[in-house]
């Protein structure tokens, strides 16, 4: 039994990523979407928090949202995987429930 968590806010603007990561359990996954993708830009405090979470859950970034914000493979934190909308759907299907950290 595992959860896909979605985070759509910037960690510099709000605390939803922090709260999400604090409630993730082993086997869960987090997908960063919309403005939430900026958390995955490497070299920031948010990216460090994400990298620390990777020991227990997977972290994904929605590629189209990352590209819109000028991010690409090179600027992405280590260990974060990129998916498209189809990959997002697949993650929602393969986890038992989805929780949106709005």
């Amino acid at each position, binding site marked *: 039994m595992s959860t896909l968590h979605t985070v*759509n806010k910037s960690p510099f603007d709000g605390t939803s990523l922090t709260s999400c990561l604090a409630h993730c359990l082993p086997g869960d996954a987090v997908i960063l979407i*919309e403005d939430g993708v900026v958390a995955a830009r490497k070299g920031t405090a948010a990216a460090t928090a994400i990298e620390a979470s990777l020991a227990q859950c997977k972290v994904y970034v929605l590629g189209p*949202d990352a590209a819109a914000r000028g991010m690409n493979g090179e600027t992405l934190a280590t260990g974060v995987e990129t998916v498209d*909308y189809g990959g997002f*759907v*697949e993650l*929602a*299907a393969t986890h038992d*429930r989805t929780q949106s950290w*709005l």
Partner: protein
Amino acid sequence: MKFAIVVNEGPYTHQASDTAYQFTKAALEAGHEIERVFFYHDGVNNATRLTVPPQDERNVQRNWSELGKAHGLDMVVCIAAAQRRGILDENEAKRQGKDADNIAEGFRISGLGQLIDAGIQADRLVTFGD
């Protein structure tokens, strides 16, 4: 697999409705079913046929209407949220003594029970908002 989609934000101000649309489209393309799309809170504002977005921008409302038509989606607008925000169909307009209605093609107005029901019927419920 059966998905229920919840849209909490209106068009343009936040990206939530766009993301919900892209997710729904991708789910259909992957062969999943959409049990219902439920428009809630400011999400009801996706359902007005009176929008006239700039020609060089996407038309959020029309995207939903067209996707709904192509796939026979059940697109439900929360009645309580719609009344607070001025989204009405012909019946509601008459019942409330209003001189116009504005609901767009493919949407229907119904109660919050439809949200609970979607949660019961669908395998997965995904919420998009702000």
